[in-house]
């Protein structure tokens, strides 16, 4: 029964390998994903008990917890929708590769949701990260490669930090499972260091500023379905990591938690503002993800800092995250739907506003839930963030309209799956949220709270959008950093030239070659032995010397 858990990561892995072998067509790849997701839904429903596999890796534990259960459910909806939308990507010359990366990403993603021990989590996390690289660069143009490079650099940087943190953790307890984490941290010599490393490592994936720069590059570069998955599910890897492998309420992590809180809010606002200055709709959506993740960081930071107790925090986080998975995933997929019929655009607008917290929508519930857990004055900040979020999404819609191409809309199956996704995005929070939140959301004050920021934002857009000429580059702070790095590299190269290292080496090699060539000529000159006349002289000398030595010695 609980072997189903095992099936989840391994089934796509097998399929991916088959895809590599060229044995998997478009339909079977999609079928595989859907099949896997059916299993995932089964798992969500059946709630199998934990699975321990000591022989696998360093001892693997697979299980569902509160957050991952929600996320698994969302993933089981998003992945099929994205797969169906991907359609043609599985075909053609690069289809095989795409299929492989896609399935491997799925495998890593699901595995990450399930694995409860450090090593296998890290494994799945890495599989997901590196397979997703294939998705990011799939278009194989310079933009994609650039985005891919930045993605990799940050991913590897993050993974390295994680690894360091993991070493510190695992040195204490081997391969700790989630349950061991509090004790492990309690026993650590340098809990702040280990915690900080893990925190930062996962933060890369979460797009916490200033580690967010890969997101605005990767999303527009990747194909639309890939962006959906990336934005919807991959970034949640960081969240899961934080929740599982960092202890709540630990004294040494206070400072880190505070910083995280700060960065969370900073992300929520700054990313939104930066996003408003972007041109491409997918870039804007990417900034929206950064902003939303910033908000999601807030409860986590509070949890870590001990200001929130897990029992209340976890459902809220699950709710918010799950909603974001569905809504953002659907919104990304909507990019392809925009050029189609009017109802498609309507759904898109609805989705955008859901995220902004439109009354009655799931988004409002998510935000309300979030606010309900916060202490003053944080709820106010959340409310304020609604303004920026709304602005951002309106900007996205605006850019969608302005840049819309005349591609044909996706086929029926893809469309229906998208619609289901959208519906789920709107409705899921209702199923999950508890009664207080629901009633708050339905109450008048709640409605007002939700409405005025959107209205304000609409007003701003109406008034100001035309005057907005100022844009910033995708990846905002990346450009100056890159310039700096490039200049440093150049100066290093100059230094190499000045020191003449290359030239010296070349000269050395040339010298070797010349010596090898000229050796025979040299030999002719040196072949001679001692001259005989000298030898005879030495004879007398040696005789005398030996005689003297012997006489003296005797």
């Amino acid at each position: 029964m609980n072997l189903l858990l095992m099936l989840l990561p391994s089934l796509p892995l097998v399929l991916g390998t088959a895809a590599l072998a060229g044995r998997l067509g478009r339909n079977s790849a999609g079928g595989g994903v859907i099949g896997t997701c059916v299993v995932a839904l089964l798992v969500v429903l059946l709630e199998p008990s934990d699975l321990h596999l000591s022989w696998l890796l360093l001892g693997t534990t697979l299980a569902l917890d509160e957050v991952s259960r929600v996320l698994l459910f969302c993933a089981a909806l998003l992945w099929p929708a994205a797969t169906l939308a991907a359609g043609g990507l599985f075909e053609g010359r690069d289809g095989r590769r795409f299929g492989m990366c896609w399935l491997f990403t799925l495998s890593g993603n699901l595995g990450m949701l399930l694995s409860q021990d450090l090593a296998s989590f890290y494994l799945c996390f890495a599989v997901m990260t590196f397979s997703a690289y294939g998705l990011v660069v799939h278009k194989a143009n310079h933009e994609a490669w650039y985005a891919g490079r930045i993605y990799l650099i940050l991913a590897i940087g993050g993974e390295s930090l994680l690894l360091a943190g993991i070493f510190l953790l695992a040195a204490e307890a081997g391969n700790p499972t989630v349950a061991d984490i509090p004790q492990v941290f309690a026993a650590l010599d340098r809990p702040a260091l280990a915690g900080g490393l893990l925190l930062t490592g996962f933060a890369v994936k979460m797009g916490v500023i200033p580690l967010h720069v890969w997101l605005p590059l990767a999303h527009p570069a990747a194909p639309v379905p890939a962006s959906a998955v990336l934005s919807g599910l991959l970034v949640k890897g960081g969240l899961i990591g934080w929740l599982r492998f960092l202890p709540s309420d630990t004294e040494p992590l206070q400072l880190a938690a505070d910083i995280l809180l700060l960065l969370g809010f900073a992300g929520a606002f700054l990313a939104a503002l930066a996003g408003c200055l972007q041109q491409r709709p997918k870039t804007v959506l990417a900034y929206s993800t950064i902003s939303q993740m910033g908000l999601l960081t807030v409860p986590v930071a509070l949890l870590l800092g001990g200001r929130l107790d897990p029992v209340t925090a976890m459902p809220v986080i699950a709710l918010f995250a799950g909603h974001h998975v569905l809504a953002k995933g659907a919104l990304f997929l909507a990019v392809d739907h925009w050029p189609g019929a009017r109802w498609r655009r309507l759904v898109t607008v609805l989705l955008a506003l859901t995220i902004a917290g439109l009354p009655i929508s799931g988004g409002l519930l998510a935000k309300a839930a979030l606010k309900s857990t916060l202490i003053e004055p944080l709820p106010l900040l959340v409310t304020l963030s609604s303004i920026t979020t709304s602005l951002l999404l309106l900007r996205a819609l605006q850019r969608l309209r302005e840049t819309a191409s005349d591609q044909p809309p996706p086929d029926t199956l893809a469309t229906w799956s998208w619609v289901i996704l959208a519906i789920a995005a709107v409705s899921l929070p209702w199923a999950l949220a508890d009664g207080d939140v629901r009633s708050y959301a339905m109450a008048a004050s709640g409605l007002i709270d939700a409405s005025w920021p959107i209205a304000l934002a609409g007003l701003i857009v109406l008034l100001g959008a035309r005057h907005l000429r100022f844009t910033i580059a995708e990846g905002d702070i990346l450009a100056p950093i890159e310039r700096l790095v490039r200049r440093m590299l150049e100066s290093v190269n100059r230094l190499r030239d000045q020191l003449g290292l290359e030239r010296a080496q070349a000269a050395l090699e040339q010298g070797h070659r010349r010596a090898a060539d000229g050796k025979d000529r040299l030999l002719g000159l040196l072949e001679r032995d001692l001259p005989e006349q000298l030898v005879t002289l030495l004879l007398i000398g040696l005789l005398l010397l030996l005689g003297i030595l012997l006489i003296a010695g005797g």
Partner: protein
Amino acid sequence: MSLAYQAMPLWVLLSSLLAAAVIFALGEGRPRLRIGINLAAALIKLVLVGIMLLGVRAGHEFIVRLPLMPGIDLVLQADALSMLFISLSALLWLATTIYAIAYLEDSPNRARFFGFFSLCVAATMGIATAGNLFTFFIFYEMLTLATWPLVIHRGTQQAMRAGRGYLCYTLGGGAVLLLGIVLLHGLAGPQDFVAGGTLVERGESHPLVLTLIFALLITGMGVKAALAPLHGWLPTAMVAPAPVSALLHAVAVVKAGAFGIVRVVYDVYGIELTQALGMAEVLAIAASVTIIYGSLRAIWQTDLKRRLAYSTVSQVSYIALGVALANPLASIGGLVHLVHQGLMKITLFFCAGCYAETHGIHSIDELDGIGRRMPWTTAMFTLGALGMIGLPPLAGFISKWYLGLGAVAAGQLWVIGVLLASTVLNAIYFLPILHRAWFRPPKQADDSLAEAPVGLLGPTLFAGFAALAVGLFAGSGWSPLAWVELLVQREYSP
């Protein structure tokens, strides 16, 4: 236990030694018979090793002792550490043999090649089963000699230059090693390898001499283990045919050096004495420097095999590092890397050979879009490369995991930095290759599927999946990791 059973290490040694003799005697004439003998010998060895593995697990003693000089014996024994190395060699020998048969099809001088190839493995077996430093040295030098004809097999000027470099380094190293051994012998008399070392009492009376000897021994071994700055021969030696490089980098030469370092630290000096002499730190620093340096150099290489060679320089030092950290966890990491690095590096070299043999690709620039034409090969290369970077669930991760844990446990946090830097650098030089292979469009118009022949691909797949499996199933009782854990337990328990 019958005598014949006890003499198992000897049979293992002879299985390839005799094969070499027969192959030499056969000459060029009868390729089929030669291939048959080659495979049969490899299989027999595998079976023998399997039997021995069971035996060692069951606690049987395998030891052969032949008097060589007055007071000095040739000792062949199979303890847990040697079994680690033997199993790796036996397994990879089979794979490499199959690969080499396919690789060298219809090329000249095959009898010579396979003869020395078998000899090379015999020497490796000898190194693995050596029961004292003297025996170790015998096979260590034999390995040098058996490998040289393989390095220069192509007979080109470049190969000759590589061969010369190889000889200069390894023979020089051998001389230094010999000095160390003689000195040690003079100081302490003949001594077998014993877990925990045998020199503890002498450590107090002759610390200086022992330090000097240690330096000599490690320098001598370090040449083969390619510890910087003694690594110079390795990158040039990559002109050898791919199976040779594979063998050189994964099983035989480099590993022999690393294995020697392990032996010296564990079974001659013992961890405690090594630490007491302060040499553990020195070794750790040397290994760390090599790790970083090798990786840095690899970044700027444009030839695929050259880059892999520098990668080896870097990776093999993990073993030394693990040993030098003098801590059970790090030791596990170092020792298990002996196997893991072998599997991963052999995969990579097999792939490089597949590229070269199927499409004539040697330079990294030419790899664009190769994933489309040779998906399996490229997939295996990917496995190997990601493993080298240290990503789970591949073999390299397990090693790095334990090394990292060991570093923390030993309180040497700077080692973590080294490991991370190495990870990053590995990523810097491996990922662009993967990127090119998978995501760049091919330069030629023709991008139809053109995989390597089965004879090449089979061993590559085997090695690649093995590199995956040892990582994935590291927790199982039969993984190298489990074996190493057992081993380290013995070393550290008094």
